[in-house]
């Protein structure tokens, strides 16, 4: 025996014109036969549903598509920035190029190795004091003396050639 509470769900569907399965339809029909309140409810549900379905459709403004197209076009610019897959694809060639440059650079370096001393000498400029640093017997005093000798040529002392 269907209660009025349980009948409401079936009444909503019946008001839509939706076909209920046979057992549900039979149960509802039996209930409606003996319940005036639910028969009124069904009529009211149909009336409301019919009116809502008759709600006039919106007419879009002429600018709707123009504005939407502009907004979608803007997304095309931001889309690539926001999408990590786009970043990955776009950066992949640059990453490969960088790796290649790094590899070639290291290969070139490996074919013509120079010692750190040679590098220091080639980059020390005119300062012989810098080369003293690679002397095994260097002392801080000898470095200072060398530096003073370079800074005071007018004193007559020529820097010792080492």
């Amino acid at each position, binding site marked *: 025996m269907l209660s009025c509470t349980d009948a409401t769900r079936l009444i909503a569907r019946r008001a839509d014109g*939706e076909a209920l399965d046979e057992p549900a339809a039979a149960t509802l029909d039996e209930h409606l036969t003996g319940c005036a309140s639910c028969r009124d409810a069904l009529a009211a549900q149909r009336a409301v549903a019919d009116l809502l379905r008759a709600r006039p459709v919106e007419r879009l403004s002429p600018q709707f598509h123009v504005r939407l197209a502009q907004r979608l076009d803007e997304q095309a610019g931001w889309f690539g920035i926001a999408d990590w897959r786009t970043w990955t694809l776009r950066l992949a060639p640059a990453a490969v190029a960088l790796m290649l440059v790094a590899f070639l650079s290291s290969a070139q370096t490996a074919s013509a190795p120079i010692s750190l001393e040679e590098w220091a000498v080639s980059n020390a400029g005119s300062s012989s004091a810098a080369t003293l640093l690679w002397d095994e017997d260097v002392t801080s005093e000898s470095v200072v003396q060398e530096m003073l000798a370079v800074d005071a040529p007018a004193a007559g002392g020529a820097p010792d050639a080492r």
Partner: protein
Amino acid sequence: MDADRGLVEAAAAGDRDAFDELVRRYQGVIVGLARSMTAGSVDAEDIAQEVFVRAWRSLRGFRGDSTFRTWLHQIALNVVRSHYGRLSRLRRMIQAPPEDQGADSDPIEMAADRLDLEENVVLRDGIDRALATLPEDLRTAVVLRDVQGLDYREIADTLGIPIGTVESRIFRGRQRLRPLLEPLRDGR
């Protein structure tokens, strides 16, 4: 089988023409949803555009677990919810009455069919105002069924609730609308 499947797949791959076709299919539906859920708000077209922009951005992530129509309605309801609060506050601040849909149209074109337009505006406005009196859960269920035409399964999928709950909400929503809509019904 999703009737929009082919277009959705093409649009997800970046085909803008395919997406434009989807927009044409659903623009009226989504604008209608926005208006009926926001009591005829003047921002319904802006809301609808936001829905389509979000759909365009998210389409690559659409897995097809539901129909495109269901997925689009989910986006639309989220946008409406996020905008409606701001719209209500703004309207209270500026005391602006809702404008009718034809405000942007050519005034000469409007004058030519003004009678029909006014009747339609009155009816649509009356329905939208009545819907606005419903709690959000009842209003959403009734709008999706009777205004948008989704079936009960689609509504359940869109809202993530059981079909029985959908039936109950629709019944209760229509029951509350009955006295509010009777004047409109009698006037037709």
